[in-house]
């Protein structure tokens, strides 16, 4: 395993957050999982604002697109416009397979886009594949500036 093992899950569906966390934990891909339910909280967490002042900086963000308060596209563009955060890989994990969503996410700088499957078996394999590729195969950037 590589050095890195902090992930932030951004999703407004508590059942999805639970399932994703369970699969990542069972596969021992990550050591620490944080979750937030909307885009405003996601940005606060990543920029360490307010109650998140002591939040760990994640190695990877798994981001849903349709979120309350601030949607995933806005979160993505804010992360990729922030010089301190932009190197952090963001994987979009969304039920949408619409070409407009996929294309726009890549244009905004998404590192990867994974379709969130509707059935349990495929959902589990998608999360496993994300964990295995990003935490066992890829090298992730440093959390703090060099």
């Amino acid at each position, binding site marked *: 395993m590589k050095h890195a093992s902090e992930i932030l899950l951004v999703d407004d569906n508590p059942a999805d957050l639970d399932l994703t966390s369970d699969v990542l934990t069972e596969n021992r891909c990550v050591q620490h999982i944080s979750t937030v339910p909307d885009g405003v909280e996601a940005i606060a967490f990543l920029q360490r604002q307010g109650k998140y002042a002591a939040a760990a900086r994640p190695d990877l963000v798994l981001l849903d697109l349709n979120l309350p308060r601030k949607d995933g596209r806005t979160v993505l563009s804010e992360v990729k416009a922030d010089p301190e955060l932009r190197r952090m*890989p963001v994987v979009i994990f969304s039920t949408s*397979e619409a070409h407009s969503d*996929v294309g726009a996410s890549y244009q905004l700088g998404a590192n*990867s886009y*994974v379709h969130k499957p509707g059935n349990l078996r495929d959902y589990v394999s998608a999360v496993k594949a994300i964990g295995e*590729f990003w935490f066992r*195969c890829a*090298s992730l*950037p440093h959390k703090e500036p060099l």
Partner: protein
Amino acid sequence: MSLNGTQILLVEDNQNDLDLTLHALKKENLANHILVARDGEEALDFLFCRGAYSDHSFDHPPRLVLLDLKLPKVTGLEVLQKVKSDPRTKAIPIIVLTSSKEDRDLVNSYNYGCNSYIQKPVSFAEFRETVKHLGLYWLVVNQPLPTKPAKEMSESCHE
């Protein structure tokens, strides 16, 4: 193979590394439709549909680019910077595949917008395993860049 059917653009100048990568891709049945570019300039010519690749179209980007960093003529980082700062090519997934252990290369690559960064393992067994995961993730799990709708297909590339 038509240039527009390229699935993987492999940019590598070292013959030994190239052979190893192609061998590993073949073992995983991922070796179809690979185009090899031997330096950064050739990679840019292909991606920007110019020079020897003026028949290639922006409407048919490769599904994946595997990019070495130490390349003749134009370095991998320069290729990355050019591709990721142009709206016509920005969305093409670029995976840096390098033997570099420099932290600066890792951080700069992500800052310039590489989609992912892989340090080549030293042993061939591990390298095969890495190529297998990489292929599964980027060619099966990851959603490809949508191809353009028919109405835009007539705009091919003009540099």
